[in-house]
């Protein structure tokens, strides 16, 4: 009597996985526990073991199909047995890409790194494997720095996906992934280079789409006189010892943002569909651009109560780790409000996309010397920086946002209050 092989649940919040390949053939004799398939979940490639021994009678799906947890994916029994009548080949349990609740793209996993030996076995220490599983890091994408390319704990912990952002509960995107495969047929030819979208990049894209589609953004821009802040910064850095960390303008804005958020706790409140969640700690996420074109947000925790010196020191450490690809899990988790600074590119002003479920994000441009009108109505040269706050209108309204950004401006224009 043929036994069913049911798609097991292989990890937390997994409801389906992409079948990459069968590792045995129909007709093969297998033992209980033998690996029969490789599937790709949201996080990594996983092996599926057969719960019974016997002869493989049939497989129900072709590689490329999505296997739902609990679906019958094959039958194992005695040699020569016929497969029980199943509900039609790639039937009921597989999902098609046109359905309205996709979470994965039918993309193949990124190629494995040097850590495999001739047998295709991934070289990773037991500890590295465990941490990778706990952190949801795809081991096959981590490069190993140990002997013979072995992946060790530091490699897993320092792993940053190609285009990373803090992981957030993903909400279903209606109309298909990335707006649906509705751009028509893929172009072909020698001037075209088609590349697969990695799962993590896809996830980020999905979050950005969600944010743009579902968060009712509005924006408030403020011009801030940075003369005093720049002057204070100079004075503070003049007494920093040679091996100390200098305070940057961004560090000051991080502190100012945190203090402002403390005065306006509504901006530290997150929207969860039918509930508001107020965060008591103010953790400022800081967008960091990476060399390979990626983007990662490091998080300055409790920025409202830390001194400028501490903030400067921590931020420097985290940003360096981010750029070196050695970011720690605590560096990139827990942000409650975010800042993005394009001042280093001399940008005048820009508008950022809110990071759901956060309520606001502050976009900061460069402090530039421009003609200004002084108090006695005269023309002079002054330093002005534009900051735009993007706000989720479900959490904050225009008046509040106006007050918020005015408070921020006042702080930065009386920078002694940041100390």
């Amino acid at each position: 009597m043929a036994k069913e092989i049911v798609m097991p649940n292989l990890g937390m919040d997994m409801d389906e996985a992409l079948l990459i390949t069968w590792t045995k053939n129909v007709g093969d004799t297998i033992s209980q526990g033998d690996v029969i398939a490789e599937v790709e979940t949201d996080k990594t490639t996983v092996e599926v073991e057969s719960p019974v021994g016997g002869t493989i009678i049939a497989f129900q799906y072709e590689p490329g199909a999505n296997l739902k947890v609990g679906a019958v994916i094959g039958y194992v029994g005695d040699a020569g047995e016929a497969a029980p009548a199943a509900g039609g080949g790639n039937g009921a349990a597989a999902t098609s890409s046109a359905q309205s609740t996709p979470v994965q793209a039918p993309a193949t996993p990124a190629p494995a790194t040097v850590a495999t030996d001739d047998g295709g076995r991934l070289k990773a220490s037991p500890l590295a494997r465990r941490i990778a599983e706990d952190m949801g890091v795809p081991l096959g994408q981590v490069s190993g720095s140990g002997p013979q390319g072995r992946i060790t704990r530091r490699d897993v912990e320092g792993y940053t996906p190609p285009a990373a952002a803090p992981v957030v509960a993903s909400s279903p995107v209606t109309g298909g992934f990335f707006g649906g495969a509705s751009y028509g047929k893929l172009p072909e030819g020698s001037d075209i280079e088609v590349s697969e979208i990695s799962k993590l990049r896809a996830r980020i894209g999905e979050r950005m789409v969600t944010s743009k589609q579902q968060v009712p953004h509005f924006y408030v821009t403020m011009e801030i006189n940075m003369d005093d802040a720049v002057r204070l910064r100079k004075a503070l850095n003049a007494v920093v010892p040679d091996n100390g960390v200098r305070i940057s303008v961004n560090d000051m804005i991080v502190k100012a943002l945190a203090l402002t958020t403390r005065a306006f706790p509504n901006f530290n409140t997150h929207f969860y569909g039918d509930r508001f969640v107020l965060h008591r700690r103010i953790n400022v996420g800081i967008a960091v651009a990476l060399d390979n074109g990626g983007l990662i947000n490091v998080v300055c925790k409790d920025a409202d109560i830390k001194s400028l010196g501490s903030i400067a020191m921590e931020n420097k450490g985290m940003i360096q780790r981010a750029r070196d690809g050695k970011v720690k899990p605590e560096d990139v988790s827990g942000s409650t409000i975010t800042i993005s600074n394009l001042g280093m590119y001399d940008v005048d002003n820009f508008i950022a996309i809110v990071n759901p479920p956060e309520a606001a994000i502050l976009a900061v441009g460069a402090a530039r010397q421009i003609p200004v009108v002084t108090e006695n109505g005269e023309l002079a040269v002054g330093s002005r920086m534009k900051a735009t706050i993007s706000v989720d209108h479900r959490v904050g309204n225009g008046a509040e946002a106006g007050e918020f950004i005015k408070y921020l401006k006042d702080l930065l224009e009386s920078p002694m209050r940041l100390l």
Partner: protein
Amino acid sequence: MAEKNIQMREALRQALIEEMLRDERVFVMGQEVGEWQGTHKVTREFADRFGERRVRDTPISEMAIAGTAVGAAMAGLRPVAEIMTINFAFVAFDAIINHMAKVHYMFNGQFTVPMVMRVASGWGDQATATHSHTPEVIFAHFPGLYVAMPSNARDAYGMLKTSIRDDNPVLFSETIALYPSVSSIPDNNPDYLVPVGKGDIKRSGDHVTVVGYARGVAWALEAAKELEKEGISCEVIDLRWLRPLDLEIVYRSFMKTNRCVIVEEALPMFNVGAEISAKLQEDLFDYMDAPIKRVSAMDVPLPYAREIELMALPNAQKVMQAVREVLR
């Protein structure tokens, strides 16, 4: 509590005196312990102080020494017997393993064997192949026998007292090279005891767990001090007892550092490092971030020529090399 600096051989001597004063059933026996003042001077002046009855010079017969001590212990005394070096204990292997270690079990508790068999171990001073063994692991192989092996004067002091007061048979191994080593002991605390089967963290660290006993600890500490300059932080654990073996202290450290090196003066095959490696990978597999390395003597009879004798023995450099390898 006041402390005083003392050589390990003197600390052992003091421990013996205090225990002999405390309990008149305790007596000393072995070759040259009396008139000759003790081969390693641990029983210096004992004969004068305690008399012939409690300080017994024996014939050159290790079987007799061991066998007599077992009998005396079974009869209610608390002998501290001595075999001049552990190399000669091989001659008494049957008495030590089949009697000393097993009488309590085989007589279903009707007899205990509360004896201590003191032996001097290792060497490294051109004593050559037959007189330079550090084979405690062979004795620790057998259930029923405690095996103590201190690395310093303080532990030696407390462990010898504990061993004498314990009702179980103890093989007490004293490393010859460590007899002159100095550390501090409590100045006036004759009840200073080191608990049976408990190791000790001799140096705290975060990057790698270095486990050793006896001379292994000295090499490990020397290596750790040098490695600190390279930014490597070693946690050095002194096992102190080979049986009962304190795996818990090793596990706690390994769960923190995920890397381990075991250092001992003993030969490589089937040694303490082998046991600890096996247990670590068995119980803490998912905590391993690198293979576990062992530093031991080379797998050769110890040579006579000084230069190659030193090559065949472990040293701090070899420990440093092993630590660097597990950190790669």
